[in-house]
């Protein structure tokens, strides 16, 4: 398995961006991204000639389009062709999402709580969603230094509420990147986890072409990963979001491993069998070596939290391995720990679990990183599909 650094929300001068695809790709590559999604407003014309740009910068460019409508902005990625954004009525965005799915794409709510018209037309999500199962992801972090913005806090809460209701929805970040300009604000990354098997298992001519192209024309390892595998990763919630180190989590129960995005089956015990409940161990890692030189955090002790529908379950300290690396010269500083999850009383059920990394960034106490969820499914009462 491999984590791919992605920027999932970008624009060029094919809509209202002030950069060409080439300039965008160059900027993304310089910032250490492996992949970007081009999500121009209501057009896919900016993707013409993308293969050449991908080769030049060793960057995957996932096709996409931001539905820029009257009642919300919806990022759609991985589509083979255009889906019509103009038909969407406030009450039937479900049909729009369905049309995106039919074309092989996935759909996410873009910056759902950004102030809407007339300040930013259609920017606030006002669609009534009939079936939240259809929503693939929510862009909970929008812009630079997203973790301190109040509108992003609302989006994060919306995501948490939907998880609590039993929906399996992924969460991402997106810079909504319109122009090449230097910023002192932290830049967020959505890491998508791509399996070695995922590349081979997929079928379809486009992927085959990508693999051949990657093998023959690029030395870049990441370039050989078909964009379909990235879309599949996000569809399944194999995502971890950060403004710095890469946070990952694997749950182990009864000899099996459950990665982010997967479903851990929980056999419901008789009340008398309480002690038989299998223990679940969370294996956590904070990798400070990712995108070296592209971000920095002040020396500190971070807090690693495990959160679920039951609230914050556990918090542990994380020693700043970046500083360790300076002292010892270690090349790959990584903090790793195993935590046994508390056994719950029989009347409580854990629906989902995610990890969060907290600390101080530019003077603000804030989330630095969070994983997507591992879901729990009771054999007695199933969650939402």
């Amino acid at each position: 398995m491999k984590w791919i650094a992605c920027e999932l929300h970008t624009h060029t001068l094919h809509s209202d961006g002030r950069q060409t695809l080439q300039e965008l790709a160059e900027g993304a590559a310089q910032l250490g991204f492996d992949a970007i999604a081009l999500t121009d407003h209501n057009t896919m014309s900016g993707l013409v000639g993308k293969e050449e740009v991908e080769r030049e910068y060793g960057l995957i460019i996932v096709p996409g389009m931001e539905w820029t409508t009257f009642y919300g902005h919806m990022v759609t990625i991985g589509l083979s062709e255009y889906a019509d954004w103009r038909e969407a009525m406030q009450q039937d965005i479900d049909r729009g999402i369905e049309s995106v799915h039919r074309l092989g794409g996935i759909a996410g709510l873009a910056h759902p709580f950004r102030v809407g018209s007339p300040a930013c037309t259609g920017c606030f999500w006002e669609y009534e969603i009939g079936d939240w199962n259809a929503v693939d992801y929510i862009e909970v972090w929008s812009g630079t230094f997203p973790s301190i913005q109040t509108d992003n806090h609302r989006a994060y809460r919306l995501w948490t509420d939907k998880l609590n209701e039993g929906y399996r929805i992924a969460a991402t970040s997106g810079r909504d990147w319109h122009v090449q300009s230097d910023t002192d604000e932290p830049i967020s990354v959505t890491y998508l986890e791509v399996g070695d098997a995922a590349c081979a298992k997929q079928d379809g001519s486009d992927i085959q072409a990508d693999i051949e192209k990657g093998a023959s024309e690029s030395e870049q390892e990441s370039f050989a990963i078909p964009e379909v595998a990235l879309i599949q990763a996000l569809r399944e919630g194999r995502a971890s979001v950060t403004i710095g180190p890469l946070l990952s989590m694997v749950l182990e129960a009864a000899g099996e491993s459950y990665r982010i995005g997967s479903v851990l089956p929980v056999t419901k015990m008789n009340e008398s069998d309480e002690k038989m409940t299998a223990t679940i161990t969370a294996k956590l890692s904070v990798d400070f070596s990712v995108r070296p030189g592209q971000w920095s955090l002040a020396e500190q002790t971070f807090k690693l939290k495990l959160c679920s529908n039951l609230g914050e379950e556990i918090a542990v300290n994380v020693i700043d391995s970046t500083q360790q690396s300076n002292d010892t010269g270690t090349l790959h500083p990584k903090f790793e720990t195993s935590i046994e999850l508390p056994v719950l009383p029989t009347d409580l059920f854990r629906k989902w679990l995610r990890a969060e990394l907290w600390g101080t960034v530019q003077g603000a106490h804030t989330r630095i990183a969070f994983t997507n969820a591992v879901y729990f499914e009771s054999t007695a009462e199933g969650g939402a599909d």
Partner: protein
Amino acid sequence: MNALKLLDTQGRVTPEDSRTHIRIPFELNTSCSRLNFRFEYAPKVLEDREQAVKLLQDSYEIYILPEQREQANARAERHLPLKNLITLSLDDAQGYRGACHRHDPLQELFVSQHEASPGLMAGEVAAGSWNVTLSLHCIVTDICDYRLQIWTPEEADA
């Protein structure tokens, strides 16, 4: 060289027309090498500052939580000036040919076989039914006038 004028239409819209589309169909009788568009609307900006701030404060009632509203009102300046936004998208008989989602109140656009304005898709300019859609994302001024002209650079076959 005579250009073939296909369409020259204008209209007036008001804030009540916000969040609607205007479909403007036109026929292309013979295939041609290039289609030109000139789209403009005015005014672009709501100059009345008091009116603009009022509109913003009304929108904050909807979009901003009560505990943050006071701060938002104090910072309303960051969202000024308020602008009208009308965008153009294009369809040929086969389907979507792209959109030009940007704030320019004057846009001179074209499509041709191998090139097109940013946002539009190059490709065959085939005879048939075409459509321009004007999407009125937001009209903030009391009135806003638009004009759309479409022409081909060639003479029509007689």
